[in-house]
């Protein structure tokens, strides 16, 4: 492998020291992204058949203003707001319904500096677990 490729791959690695809900033992993921695509694929390294569609919520869910608890962010080493990238998990509804839901109740916070991530469950903030967005695919 060339050095440049190795560097690129490392940039896209995301680690979850505490796993994710439902995937408690998953520790390492790779964010696969096409330049123009709305969604990226967060693929588990230990078990590559596991993948989660993710997207940044801001354009798709206007009005979304999650309050991220400091102690949750501290667990992935966040020191300032600029360290945080927020991703939300998208679920494609069963056919023939083409709806896509965004999980706004439990966003994935990524520390872009350390590449550590954690899914934060926002209790009592009222953000929906299934926010529908119209989609064509």
């Amino acid at each position, binding site marked *: 492998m060339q050095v440049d490729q190795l560097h690129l791959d490392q940039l896209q690695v995301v680690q979850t020291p505490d796993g*994710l*809900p*439902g*995937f408690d033992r998953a520790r390492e993921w790779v964010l696969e*992204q*096409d330049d*123009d*695509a*709305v*969604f*990226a*694929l967060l693929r588990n390294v230990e078990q590559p058949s*596991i*993948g*989660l*569609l993710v997207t940044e919520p801001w*354009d*798709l*869910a*206007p*009005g*979304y203003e999650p309050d991220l608890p400091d*102690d*949750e962010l501290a667990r992935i080493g966040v020191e300032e707001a600029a360290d945080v990238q927020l991703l939300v*998990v*998208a*679920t*494609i509804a*069963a056919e023939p319904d083409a709806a*896509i839901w965004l*999980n*706004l*109740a*439990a966003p994935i916070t990524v520390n872009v500096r350390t590449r550590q991530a954690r*899914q934060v*469950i926002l*209790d009592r903030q*009222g*953000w*929906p*677990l*299934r*926010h*529908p*967005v*119209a*989609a*064509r*695919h």
Partner: protein
Amino acid sequence: MLVLTRREGETFRLGDDIEIEILDIKPGVVRVGIRAPRHVRVLRSELLEAVAAANHEAAARHAIDLASITVEAKPVARG
């Protein structure tokens, strides 16, 4: 599982710095107060289970062409 019987207003401790108080008992419902340091996360179990189920559902249907999806934004309805 350790099982304790407590009356309304009584408390118990978990470790050195967590105290649980039984605030109110009604048929079918109990209100519980928790005194714990900020770093202790308190989460209703069914919420964690709902997020885990949502993650499993999402993971079951990701094998699609990412570039083929187009979406429209929708304002969030806060519950």
